[in-house]
């Protein structure tokens, strides 16, 4: 079954890397994957996003316009992508920084106060993207948590491996929030 997802937020919120990690994990599970970043000057300062497709069959198009899952980490992204969630699709949004919540009734909406939780419980806001990722896999269990850990292992440069436990905590915390 094909899963078309997009991760959007400010540059620096780590949307590209969370998408990459998820895709890598899925690849490890033997699935077909594609990861497509937004690119170009508009990224600067402004918003960044990446589309991640996961499927049992070859991915027909890396770029899509309707999504099974939208992850929005800032208001511009929420406004931009809320309309493009497929019916009964999933919308995850960062609820501690985004003031006005999404409105659609025909989709599953998950507010995650990732920034606040990362700050308060993990004392590190940087991992809030991992926290969101945890929530996501809990919701649609697209990949196993273990696969994400393997992905971290294999994609993080050696010198950052010390950060893996923190990231794992973040993922678990995220899972616990839904």
């Amino acid at each position: 079954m094909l899963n078309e997802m997009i991760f959007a937020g400010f540059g620096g919120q780590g949307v590209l890397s969370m998408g990459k990690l998820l895709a890598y994990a899925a690849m490890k599970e033997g699935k077909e994957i594609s990861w497509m970043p937004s690119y170009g000057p508009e990224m600067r300062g402004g918003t960044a996003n990446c589309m991640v497709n996961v499927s049992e069959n070859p991915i027909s198009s890396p770029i899509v316009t309707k999504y099974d899952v939208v992850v929005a980490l800032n208001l511009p992204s929420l406004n931009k992508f809320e309309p493009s969630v497929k019916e009964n699709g999933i919308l995850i949004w960062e609820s501690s920084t985004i003031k006005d919540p999404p409105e659609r009734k025909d989709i599953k909406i998950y507010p995650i106060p990732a920034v606040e939780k990362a700050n308060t419980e993990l004392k590190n806001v940087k991992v809030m993207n991992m926290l969101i990722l945890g929530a996501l896999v809990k919701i649609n269990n697209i990949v196993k948590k273990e696969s994400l850990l393997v992905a971290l292992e294999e994609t993080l440069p050696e010198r950052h491996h010390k950060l893996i436990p923190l990231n794992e905590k973040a993922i678990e915390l995220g899972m616990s929030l839904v």
Partner: protein
Amino acid sequence: MPAKGYVDIIVDACKGCGLCVTNCPTQCLDLKKDDTNSYGYHYSYMADEDKCIACMNCAVMCPDSVITVYKKTG
């Protein structure tokens, strides 16, 4: 006595680069650590109202022309 001058900063136009802050001779500006504008930036604001001497350094340095400087008349 009231300050020699003061500045207006358009919150949403500020990118939080901090150049105004570091170039203010009297340290009256600072970046809002605990808040971001709608673009996600920790914007600059007047932290100490009384110190401004209307030297315009902040505005001169601001790449985004978001600072207006006012000077006491007379």
